[in-house]
């Protein structure tokens, strides 16, 4: 493979064999199918998809935790199945939404210990820990036992662990999952800053927050049900939607509206309603602006009073809708197995 590809996958696939109990017959679950990705050195690459799309599975394969059932993958030019030890020297990984770490150690001890595994001299490790802790905003908690930290702070500690080492490729699996708005913003700006300061390092980030992919990533692959559906810069992904017009409408309605009445209207591409605190939010995309009058007519017919109406720019969520025919949260609701 070419020298300056940080990650490459070739027809990568993963099937899980699952069985809920001993009596039940084994079923197969296709978690990844024919994934072909090329991530260049220095890129901040995003993998955007709903829960259950296969993002974590892909990260696990690339970080040598899981073997693929078909295809191959390379990280920093090394085959992940054949040279796992070599790959591990060049990567680091952080998963969001979990509390990991040795609770009886302080934050500093936890981080120092991991730095030891990577062979970073003690003094250098402590210097980096201090710098990173200041940037992320937990410098005053370095001597706190990590079990005494809130979930959010523990996650920040985990994120520092990922950025501590001399790596070539960093994998962040939903790094802001479970963080509050402020902390997520901190983490995002830290990631962006780190990429600017380390132009030769590569970062693969997964997320199901489209804002995150849109704000942060140089390129984004949209993934659903184990397949990569599109891969490009956020701007170019949205280019395909330049002929569509997007509206957000908040209406005052006592119950859900009859969707089909709207979808029947000529020129309506997509219609989605979701109840909010004391209104109903409608996401509507139209082929041309003129159709809006018919929408308003139909709203009146269903006695829904308009509270607010906004025209907005297309987002990656709209790209997802265009590719899959459903919004991300709709796919998630279907994908969750009933057990």
């Amino acid at each position, binding site marked *: 493979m070419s020298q300056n590809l940080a990650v490459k996958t070739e027809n990568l696939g993963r099937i*899980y064999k699952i069985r809920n109990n001993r009596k039940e017959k084994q079923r197969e679950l296709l978690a990844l199918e024919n994934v072909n990705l090329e991530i260049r050195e220095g890129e901040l690459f995003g993998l955007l998809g709903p829960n259950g799309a296969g993002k974590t599975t892909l990260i696990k394969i690339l970080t040598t*935790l899981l073997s693929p059932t078909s295809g191959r993958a390379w990280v920093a030019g090394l085959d992940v199945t054949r040279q796992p030890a070599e790959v591990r020297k060049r990567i680091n990984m952080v998963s969001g939404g979990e509390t990991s770490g040795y609770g*009886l150690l302080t934050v500093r001890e936890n981080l120092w210990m991991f730095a*030891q595994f*990577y062979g970073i001299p003690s003094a250098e490790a402590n210097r980096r820990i201090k710098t990173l802790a200041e940037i992320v905003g937990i410098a005053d908690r370095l001597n706190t036992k990590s079990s005494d930290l809130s979930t959010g702070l523990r996650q920040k500690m985990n994120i520092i662990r990922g950025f501590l080492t001399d790596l070539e490729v960093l994998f962040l699996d939903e790094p802001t999952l479970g963080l509050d708005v402020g902390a997520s913003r901190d983490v995002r700006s830290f990631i962006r800053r780190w990429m600017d300061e380390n132009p030769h390092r590569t970062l693969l980030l997964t997320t199901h927050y489209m804002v995150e992919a849109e704000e942060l990533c140089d390129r984004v692959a949209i993934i659903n049900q184990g397949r990569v559906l599109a891969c490009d810069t956020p701007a170019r992904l949205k280019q395909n939607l330049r002929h569509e017009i997007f509206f957000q409408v908040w209406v005052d309605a006592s119950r859900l509206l009859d969707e089909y009445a709207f979808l029947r209207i000529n020129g309506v591409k997509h219609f989605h309603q979701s109840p909010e605190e004391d209104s109903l939010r409608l996401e509507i995309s139209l082929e041309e602006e003129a159709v809006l009058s018919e929408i308003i007519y139909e709203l009146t017919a269903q006695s829904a009073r308009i509270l607010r109406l906004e025209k907005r720019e297309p987002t990656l969520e709209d790209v997802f809708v265009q590719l899959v025919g459903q919004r991300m949260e709709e796919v998630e609701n279907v994908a969750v197995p009933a057990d």
Partner: protein
Amino acid sequence: MKGAPMQKSVQKSVNLRSFLTASWLGWQIESNWTDPFLFATYSTIKPVAGAAILVLMYSIVTQGNFDSPVFAYLYLGNAFYQYVPAVLTGVSWTIIDDREHYRTLKYIYTAPVNIPFYLFGRAVAKFIVGTFGVVITIAAGVLFLNVPLDWSRVDWPLFLVALFLGVLMLALSGLILAGITLMTARHSYYIGDVVAGGLFLFTGAIFPLEVLPNWLRPIGYLLPITYWLELIRRSLVGAVAEAFPTFTALSNGDLLLILAASSLVFGIASIFIFRYCDHQARERGLIDQTTNY
């Protein structure tokens, strides 16, 4: 070509680093007692209580014949057997502890860590605590129960070599259990203790193998632990131990050779078994699989 020796020394430092850092961590975890007094009491009472039960049973069965060589034989066998669960559990428990409790196993795995060396390192603290138990038990035996241990007649070189080989052999056996633990997402919580408990009666720890029915004896002859305990006893109370029938035909040198050879066989087997389990665990995605309590 010219990179090769360099590669080797880097590899060596990975192993050493994994071992030392893990030892540090293991000690932090093991010594994390909020009350050191409680810790010391517990570490004393547990082994002494175990020995006391054994002594009580012995005294009932033999009507208090503490001068018999059998007494020293079983007392020392029992005392040193404490290393078996300590090391087996020390090496294998880490897999569950890191995977289920601290949720760090995947981060250890994706780091440039040699996992077997990491596991051995984590076991060091358990070995030290185990040693404390062994020393306490023996001290109690010598001070209060007339265990015939004459310090000036101990064969120290033999003792140290046997102890080293035995602990190495136990650590490698622990690696096999660690591999099994890695592959089974649950059900292997106490695998180290269960295996140690199950083998206790077959290793001649508290009675000679001759006591076992004929068809069960081969188990004892196949276990390196049996030869190890015999060597330890001979190094400590030579004449008394040699009074026992099981290995009278074998010299200390023979026993040492058997122990070394079987440790080697175990060692090689354990490395292959661990690699196999490790591979299987990655095939099945078990390295970060947590059980939902």
